[in-house]
């Protein structure tokens, strides 16, 4: 109750509020730039990322090859750029698909309950019984490698998180006064679900999704590193780190740059997720 009319936002909070907003917008811009880069990467590469030059292998970073060349004489910088496309867009796509599917299932399960809820939650239980990337390893290991299979493997369990969070949120929200009030206002079930419940839980889910991008990226990279992800010569950061492994001592840049870029990207997505969470948190940010 006390919190209800915290209109007098004092200086300190104001500052932290601005900070939260500033941080959010800043990171949003960076994230968008990152995604933008990953989209236009093919037009930005200084060299053909697939063109080999066996006479110019393992060259150290230079003006022509910013990140040096790899064991096939390919420009590591160009490959990192092109790899951004694979790594980021694959992770993004995976997250978006699992997000949509998981959220829909979660909302429907939470709201209607009954057999449909039971069915999906049992499926989720079974999928969640597989430890982390073990199912990914099993799927990719059994049905074979390839980016699509790796994504499938990760997506198989990916949706459950959204479904569970959405469901539990819907379950508690279902009893909230404002939902009952909305029902008294004559709203249909569908409208209740999508006009009233969804906007109120989407924040949490979006935050999970943003944080999930990094996880998925690491998952895909991990599978690629194990040789279960992308196939040669496709550029993907995880497989690039892997292929540079043998040259760690001779030409460390082959592994180091994709590894570092991946790390930085994940950090950015994670920071963005955190900033988004703060931004959406009514306790911190009250005026949205």
């Amino acid at each position, binding site marked *: 109750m006390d919190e209800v009319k915290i209109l007098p936002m004092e200086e300190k909070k104001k500052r932290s509020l601005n900070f939260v907003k500033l941080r959010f917008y800043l990171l949003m811009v960076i994230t968008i730039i990152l995604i933008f880069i990953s989209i236009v990467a093919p037009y930005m590469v200084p060299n053909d990322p697939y063109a080999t030059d066996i006479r110019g292998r393992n060259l150290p970073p230079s003006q022509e090859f910013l990140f040096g060349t790899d064991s096939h004489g390919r420009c590591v910088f160009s490959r990192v750029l092109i790899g951004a496309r694979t790594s980021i867009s694959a992770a993004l796509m995976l997250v978006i698909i699992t997000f949509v599917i998981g959220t829909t299932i979660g909302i429907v399960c939470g709201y209607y309950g009954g057999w449909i809820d039971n069915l999906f939650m*049992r*499926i989720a*239980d*079974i*999928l969640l*019984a*597989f*430890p*982390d*990337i*073990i*199912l*990914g*390893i*099993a*799927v990719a*290991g*059994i*049905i*074979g490698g390839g980016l699509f299979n790796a994504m499938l493997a990760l997506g198989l369990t990916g949706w459950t998180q959204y479904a569970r969070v959405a469901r539990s949120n819907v379950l508690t929200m279902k009893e909230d006064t404002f939902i009952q009030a909305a029902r008294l206002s004559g709203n249909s079930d569908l409208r209740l679900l999508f006009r009233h419940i969804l906007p109120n839980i989407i924040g949490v889910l979006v935050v999970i999704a943003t944080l999930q991008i*990094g996880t998925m990226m*690491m998952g895909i*990279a*991990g599978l690629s*590193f*194990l*040789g*279960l992800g992308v196939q040669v010569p496709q550029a993907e950061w*995880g497989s690039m*780190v*892997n292929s540079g*492994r043998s040259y*760690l*001592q001779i030409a460390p840049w082959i*592994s180091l740059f994709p*590894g570092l870029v*991946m*790390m*930085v990207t*994940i*950090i950015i997505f*994670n*920071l963005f997720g955190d900033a988004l969470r703060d931004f959406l948190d009514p306790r911190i940010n009250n005026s949205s």
Partner: protein
Amino acid sequence: MFQYIIKRLLQLIPIMLGVTLLTFGLMYLAPGDPASMKLSAQGVPISQDIIEQTRIEMGLDNPFVLQYLTWLRNFLSGDMGKSYADHLPVAEKLMRALPKTIMLSISSMMVTLLVSIPIGILAAVKHNKASDYLIRCMTFIGVAMPNFFLSLLLIYFFALKLNWLPVLAEGSLKGLILPTVALSIAMSSRYIRQVRAVVLEELNKEYVVGARARGVKERIILYKNVLYNTMVTIITLIGLSIGSLLGGTVIVETIFIWPGLGKLVMDAIGARDYPVIQGFVVWMTFIYVMVNLIVDISYRLLDPRTYSS
């Protein structure tokens, strides 16, 4: 409580059935014919007759459900089939590797807890001070560092450049250090952040203000009240992270040649050794599910609200 355990154990049955069905189903759908795969792994010259014969021997001509049930029956009786690659019983192979994986998991878990709980609490207590920011920065890097990348860097520096630790872990105690560190860094980073958040939240609870208002010593508030209360959450975290720990062991074991289950399965994947993969997946899942059960139970034991109502 006892009833609860029984109930949970009963709930495991359909889940494990689902897991086995899924695992078996995957193998069933997998490209390639298990019979010829088995034969080619043995280096036997493959004629169509032999393949047919092997198919019948392996029961591959039976309908899916029957195959599954047969497989399940054998599995339950401890017979997980034989490795295509070296004809050793899968159960034996897994059994041999299991202790190593458990050793690695436990040591990583211990290190993680020992590192993350104090640091997490420190960060929470020093909320928004320099040390808090420093810790948070480090954790961000730690979380974002892919464990295979980290593993390579660790080997490069500690084994090769400094020559402090062996390159070949080979299941020795000294060799345990690097894989443990590789696994714990990411995990600790995640934990520190979570412990920090949980402790912060707990510190803001009214009962803490209450205790302060009663003049209870800060130390007692922190250790006897806050820490104990957050333990419940931390234990849940442990349960949740066991999954990624087990997943992480696969990569780390492969890089460090740690003769555990992870390495075994990667070798098996390389050799399309399906019985081993199958056995591995089901085992890992079982371990994971059991650990989570234990976590749930201890969670209930720790929180009086759950076990007495």
